[in-house]
């Protein structure tokens, strides 16, 4: 069950972060925003995900050094938007299929 949750969470997390990065955010800011929508991210685990998204050119980044400490800001790229749409469509169809299956189970009960 734990493994299932990890796998589902990893895929969902990417889609959610891509949605969030329509506006520029830095890491800690993203964690706070995720928490606001009810997603608790383990401290630190967000950064490898952001790194992967950046490697795949789904997000772009820049360093802002004018504040009290240097911060790396991320924002979605055009390619990221394309992928996000595909991810959301895929998640939507999976969700619809899941709802259908749940309906069938209820009827059988």
């Amino acid at each position, binding site marked *: 069950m734990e493994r299932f949750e990890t796998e589902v969470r990893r895929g969902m997390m990417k889609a959610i972060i891509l949605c969030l990065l329509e506006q520029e955010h*830095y*890491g*800690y800011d993203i964690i706070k925003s995720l928490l606001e929508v009810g997603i608790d991210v*383990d*401290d*630190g*685990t967000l*950064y*490898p*995900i952001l*790194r*992967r998204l950046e*490697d*795949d050119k789904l997000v772009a980044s820049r*360093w802002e050094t004018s504040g009290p*400490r*240097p*911060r*790396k800001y991320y924002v979605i790229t055009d390619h990221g938007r394309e992928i996000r749409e595909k991810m959301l469509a895929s998640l939507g169809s999976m969700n619809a299929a899941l709802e259908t299956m749940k309906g069938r189970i209820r009827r059988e009960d």
Partner: protein
Amino acid sequence: MYERLIDEYVGKVTKDMGTGQREEVGRELKSHIYDSAEATAAKRGAGIDEAAVREVLARMLPPEKLAAMYPSRETFLTKSSVWKAVQALAGIAVAFLLLAGILSFVAPEAAEVPVGVILSIVMALAVAIIVLAVIFFTIYLYESRLKMTYEARLRRLVKSLEHPASPLVVGMAIALAAFGLIFVQCLWPIIPFPADFSTGRWVPLFSPAFDTFVPYYTLWLVAEIIVQILYLTLRNKWVPSLLETGLSLASVLLTFWVLQVFPFNPELSTPVQTSIKVLLALAILGTLVDAAKKLWQTARFFMYGDLKNSQAE
């Protein structure tokens, strides 16, 4: 004081990363820890202190686990054991060439024989390098046809090379066994070998006595091909794994018998014969270790159904 705690944690996360990645990841993680510690301390109405930093670090994943989550910067070249072997062989070849150069320079009149030996070793190493390079690029081309990310391709390749039942490993084992069959059926009488290390005279490697071993090696190689096919067809992988262990032990006995009978050309010089005996003894030792590994692999297949240490994996 808390800066040291942060540096230690970040250092552990980034220690195996390349210079660029290390700096970037370190900077970002430090920034996160400070932000998080500041928020934690603010809840208590205080500024950042050691307790707040410790609290943040305790909430974070162990550094090794976090480091493992970052995308690897390893390339196919740095990861591949085949490539490492090519590098090692090339290094040995260069070392031998340097030695030959020094000998020719220091004692040109006495260096003719040792330099000849060194050059033949270097030639053998060059052949080994070419063979390994061909294997390396064949595997790479095989994997390149897949529409996957580079990193996923690398992981897939390493995983399939580690798993005895993967089609890639089975294919390679069958190809090697097929070559072995050609060797024992047709090639062994004509395999040439230097009679000694000084004159460069070549003679057939085997004596006619090797004919005795041909049916046994043929049987062994056919059994090896069958076992490899069983890996692909049987659901219970422990069966072919156990059979493979048996084949390894049979190979030990067969090599020991070859060592006893020594069906090699008597025209080979004593140093060459001694070298062959040492190689055979090493082969016996290596095959025994391999048999032990395969027995352990059989136990894991039997217990978990696959090469896993536990159900949690």
